[in-house]
């Protein structure tokens, strides 16, 4: 086992480890891989003691305690595994073989000279080399870089090659993130850790972000998922050759392209066929974009239907279900049904005065009513439990209201286990990428969901509670999830008084 240092990008911190472990699982080395948790990464309080409150206040440029650090260490069986991670994880900037790290250069060189560590770099002595000296959250003053390089002269590396080196030796000083205006090189030398190692691979997956840029896509819409996130989601879904992946709210197809790019066969459905087809009658929008990315041969089909009236013959079909369901804010979240709550659909087709059945006309739009996001999320999880193969994953975004969110809000059900929950923070609200895995087998006990009218049930419960003189604020004693009626809270700017009364009113619908 060899120790590697993984250098992450600055954003999407909570997505890093789930993405990395998903890729390791695809390639079968999740079990042997050992990750150092981020909060166990070594640091150095240079004075050897905690800062007093006075010192903290007097420092004009306090460190930001919650700033994520850019590195973790990982033990892997082989360099090939490191290269696999760097080639596919979109959040990885680079991976290095870590030779030594310490709070000071003195300690670093001491460690570096130990026989066990020397054995790691000695073989590269006659390889043309280049030294890459860098710093996190800091700028070197003139001349210091050369000083650092000279400190390594005892290694006796023979041939410098700035162009086309055979090995890149990497030195990095990691500093605290300091915010506010200050001289650029202030605090020089007061790093948390200095790291020394060899570049194994640059993160090449990041170039896919530009490749899938929505603005350059042959077909897209206002709800198209941005490139970086659709790549991360495809990684969470463990898209790979031989797999079958489904998006039940496929819209303009963003998630299909990245899953297909990684080799999976993909299927999409949506209640609104226009989203998939586009306005051009001579070509299908989704297929135009798929051809642009050379993945048209992996798009099985796209179909127009409401998941609450889905035509799937059987369950246990898909390796993954990946989707960004409509929250009701930009895209209308709707399901087929009467707009009058509680009224069942007419079982007979409506026949127009000229004898034609209304639903056979090409301009026919079926009656729909709102599909509230918390109901949709619960139904989606039950649908996934039925449609997934055992071990398959559901990967979807859930909008959350920051102040009110609690983990119990997550729509779980028996047979689906929570694998990851990564927050994309927008301030007063956010969206969480939830990954669930089907842990139950494909026996007859996994039924398709019934898609009952939850709104109607809540109204009934409320009426019942009123009749019995009970507290109507939360019938049945269940906590109202923070994302209930998310759409309304969003348009009210997440103001609290409104949302409290909204929750009370919510149980009526």
């Amino acid at each position, binding site marked *: 086992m060899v120790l590697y240092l993984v250098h992450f990008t600055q954003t999407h911190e909570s997505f890093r480890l789930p993405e990395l472990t998903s890729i390791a699982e695809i390639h079968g080395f999740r079990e042997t891989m050992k990750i150092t948790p981020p909060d166990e990464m070594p640091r150095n309080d240079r004075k050897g003691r905690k800062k007093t409150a006075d010192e903290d206040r007097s420092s004009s440029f306090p460190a930001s305690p919650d700033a994520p650090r850019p590195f973790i260490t990982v033990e892997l069986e082989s360099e090939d595994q490191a290269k696999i991670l760097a080639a596919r994880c979109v959040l990885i900037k680079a991976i290095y073989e870590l030779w030594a790290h310490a709070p000071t250069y003195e300690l670093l060189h001491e460690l570096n000279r130990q026989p066990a560590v020397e054995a790691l770099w000695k073989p590269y002595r006659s390889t043309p080399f280049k030294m890459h000296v860098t710093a996190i959250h800091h700028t070197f003053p003139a001349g210091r870089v050369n000083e650092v390089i000279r400190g390594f002269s005892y290694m006796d590396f023979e041939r410098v090659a700035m162009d086309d080196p055979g090995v890149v030796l990497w030195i990095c000083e990691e500093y605290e993130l300091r915010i506010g205006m200050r001289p650029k090189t202030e605090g020089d030398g007061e790093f948390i850790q200095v790291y020394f190692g060899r570049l194994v691979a640059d993160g090449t997956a990041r170039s896919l972000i530009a490749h899938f840029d929505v603005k350059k896509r042959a077909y897209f819409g206002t709800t198209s998922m941005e490139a970086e996130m659709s790549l991360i989601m495809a990684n969470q879904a463990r898209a790979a050759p*031989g797999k*079958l992946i489904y998006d039940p709210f496929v819209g303009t197809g963003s998630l299909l392209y990245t899953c297909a790019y990684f080799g999976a066969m993909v299927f999409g459905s949506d209640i609104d066929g226009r989203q998939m087809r586009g306005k051009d009658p001579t070509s299908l929008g989704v297929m135009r974009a798929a051809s642009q990315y050379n993945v048209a041969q992996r798009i099985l*089909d796209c179909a127009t239907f409401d998941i609450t009236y889905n035509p799937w*013959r*059987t369950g246990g079909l898909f390796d993954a279900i990946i989707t960004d369901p409509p929250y009701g804010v930009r895209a209308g979240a709707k399901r087929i049904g009467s707009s009058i709550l509680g009224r069942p659909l007419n079982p007979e087709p409506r026949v127009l005065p000229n004898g034609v059945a209304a639903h056979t006309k090409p301009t026919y739009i079926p009656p729909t009513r709102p599909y509230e996001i918390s109901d949709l999320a619960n139904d989606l999880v039950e649908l996934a439990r039925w449609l997934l193969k055992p071990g398959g994953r559901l990967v979807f975004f859930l909008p959350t209201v920051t102040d009110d969110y609690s983990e119990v809000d997550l729509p779980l059900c028996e047979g689906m286990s929570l694998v990851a929950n990564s927050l994309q923070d927008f301030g007063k609200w956010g969206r969480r990428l939830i990954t669930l895995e089907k842990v139950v087998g494909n026996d007859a006990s996994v039924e398709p969901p019934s898609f009952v009218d939850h709104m109607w049930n809540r109204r009934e419960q409320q009426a019942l509670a009123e009749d019995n003189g009970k507290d109507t604020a939360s019938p049945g004693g269940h906590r109202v999830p923070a994302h209930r009626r998310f759409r309304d809270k969003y348009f009210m700017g997440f103001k609290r008084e409104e949302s409290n009364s909204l929750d009370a009113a919510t149980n009526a619908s």
Partner: protein
Amino acid sequence: MVRLITHNLLACHVKGCDSNNFPLAFSDAQLEIREAEFNAEFLKGFFPKIEWKALVDSARQLGDVSLPETPPADALDNEEFLKALHHVLLEVCLKSLDAGQLRMTSPRSTYKKER
């Protein structure tokens, strides 16, 4: 246009319609080929889910007779069979004879499903 794999997975979507709801019947359809990437692992993974009779019948209705009435005993290791299966399952498509939408009908219900 609908690949035969999709046709093999679609049943009547009317609530409570759970017998005599598959396969969906079609008429006025022609065969069209849409290319798909061959992947043996995908076919082997999907094979247990195929309703074989419906697949063969729909292919023959379109004029493709390359698939046997029953799959061979060594189906998943048989390279030739897998290639034939790939072609029919993934590349043979149902397309409406006229320029309009293809009509597929549930065998029991009188409502039509359109694609």
